[in-house]
């Protein structure tokens, strides 16, 4: 079952540590400009991190004129063929979450690969608030239902 990185906006405090953890993992340097997860503050009270959602029928893959992008049928992870990619940026534009990066010094694009080969993605490991997790859509649904019922229960107790 496909898994991806999920951020709970109630737990996320906007510390940006996930960005640095990602950059270190992927580049070997404290090079935050190369992060593949993005911590965003839309508003002082709305903060969360977002990265590749491993979409079904991903628009990034469809948009690539050179077929440099492909999706692993098992894991859903987007693979980039660095030989084929010419850095045209169509996929950057096509991604509905804005999580594909094109580094100024590289001609190819980069995207979250869930730190494949690592026991746990770096961003998840370093998140100090346990706001990030690797989840499946089934798990996300279960968690949400649990929380909603928990809130209902609290209201019943109060009433």
């Amino acid at each position, binding site marked *: 079952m496909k898994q991806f990185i999920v951020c709970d906006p109630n737990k996320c405090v906007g510390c940006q540590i996930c960005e640095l953890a990602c950059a*270190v993992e992927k580049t070997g340097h404290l090079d935050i400009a190369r992060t593949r997860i993005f911590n965003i503050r839309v508003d*002082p009270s709305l903060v969360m991190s977002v990265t590749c959602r491993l979409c079904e029928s991903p628009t990034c893959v469809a948009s690539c004129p050179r077929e440099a992008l492909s999706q692993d049928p098992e894991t859903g992870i987007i693979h980039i063929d660095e030989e084929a990619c010419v850095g045209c940026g169509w996929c950057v534009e096509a991604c509905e979450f804005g999580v594909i990066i094109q580094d100024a010094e590289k001609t190819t694009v980069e995207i979250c690969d869930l730190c494949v080969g690592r026991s746990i993605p770096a961003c998840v490991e370093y998140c*100090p608030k346990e706001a990030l997790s690797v989840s499946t859509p089934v798990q996300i649904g279960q968690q949400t239902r649990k929380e909603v019922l928990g809130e209902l229960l609290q209201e019943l107790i109060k009433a």
Partner: protein
Amino acid sequence: MYSYTGRVLHVELSRRESHVEVLDPDFVQEYLGGAGLATRLLVDNAEPGCDPLGEGNAVAIAVGALAGTMVPCSGKHAVAAKSPLTGFIGDSLSSSYWSHTLRRAGYDAMVIKGKAAEPTYLFVDNEHALFRSADALWGKESFATEEAIRAEIGDGRVRVACIGVAGEKQVSYACVGNDRGRQAGRTGVGAVWGSKNLKAIAVRGTKPVAVADLEGLNKLSLDLAKGAQGLPTAKYRITGTAGNVLTLNRLGLLPTRNFRNSVFEGAEEISGEFMQANFKEKTVACSGCPIACEQVTRVREGLYEGARASIDYETLYALGPCCGIGDFKPIIKAADLCDRYGLDTMSTGVTIAWAMECYERGILTASDTDGLELNFGNHEASIALIERIALREGIGDLLAKGSKRASEQIGQGSETFAMHVKGLELPGYEPRGLKTYALGLAVGTRGACHNRSLAYEPDMKGQVDRLTVEKGRGSIAMECEDLAATLDCLMFCKFIRGCFNDFHEEAVEFYRLATGLDLTTEDLKQVGERVCNLKKYFNIREGWTKEADWLPARLLEDPLPDGGDQGTTLTPEELRLMIDDYYAARGWTEDGLIPAEKLAELGLEDLTQKARQ
């Protein structure tokens, strides 16, 4: 030398010139960064005896030694200038994205001199320093200024430090804000920016930061971040520092109505707990902070509907009980206004409290206040005053000078209840019941500041009897001050200090892994001492005399008004004894001057030579 870039960006606004100075690693290690480096750069670049709001003053900004790395709570910067509020050292700290970004742009520090002919903002775009017109920004509030600059440059990664309208108008306690709501709050550094026609410094820093041992540093950082989720940070994480309200009120140490009372009858409804239940919207963190103490609050109904601000204890105390205000909604509104105008919430609140006492005593009347009824507790009047202070309209022009100069101007005994030291208004702890802290406030180089002193800790933790005085408090206050200075140079947020088992041991390890430089724990302690002496040296150079180290008359004349320790006095003799003891502990003369040998011992002998020239 890693982590550091070894580069200082010098900017001359009058000539619109900039250049980069390369720092010697030995020099860097003397000050580490942050408040130490900024103070040293100020000493070297401000004209001795300068008018704080004249062209001869300089602004020195330095990030901490570990900014740009993953070390928890290390993303901070110091802004130093000769203070228009005190005439002495003004060193003010802030944090978050802007701090990290300056390091990523390739700088450890900046020095700004001269005065721009027109409203200007600087755009530090990695290696380029660009002078840009701030005509369209002049008159804009802080948050809007940040957004307007980002929009103009067209890159969301650009981080902005700026002044609001209060800074433009050179209100003596205007602050420099960054990242929507972080402030280099105290001592009026924002007025210095305003006097230089400097509206903002925008930074785009996209370079990697190199460290000596990345793997080792990150492992230690992860451990500290996990450790920062425990008991030592519980208050900060759960209620923020607003949790102090009920604790201090219970102890009878919550300054109320301009320090006329020390218990506030309305404390429950302005407590951190009440805030959590009724006004909190979200807890957020500075960039790089695993604790997250910032409590974003919002007013959802009534007169102040829509007001939003992050509320910490000092803001709460100054705009709340100190002004006799026991309703959270106007406090949030007042903090929101201060943030947007770019005013220090603490000096604003305590100066308004002084005005309220003047009004109740008939020293100020309705004809002075444009009809505002400045009774304690009148929040509508308090909010109207904030706007007048920021714009320097009517009575606001007087109050914009701060409680010291305003009270000197109108006299009539109002000086005795102007609650400041050296011009800087007091924080929210009652000094009559915290005597080591009282000493710390009196001798503080930037004036009354709990964060530079930290001497409330031995009092609050019961390491000493907080209600009595004896010899020995001098060295305790000194050690607290040196530790605070060390934290401010490495730049660890003080809220993480409880998460170390042995701060000095662990700090040198972080420092070594990041910079590759070996520093002993003794070296580290000496940096704190050196920087405290350097700040004092600056003050002496700018005209400090012994009389400046003292407390407001109210604290020495009236006994502690309320609470369990009601009636406790802090006498001038007790204060004198502690100050003399402190000077002796520091190795200073009886008049509080630094002997040449002491400067030499701290490696500051070049200052003695400078003074002779």
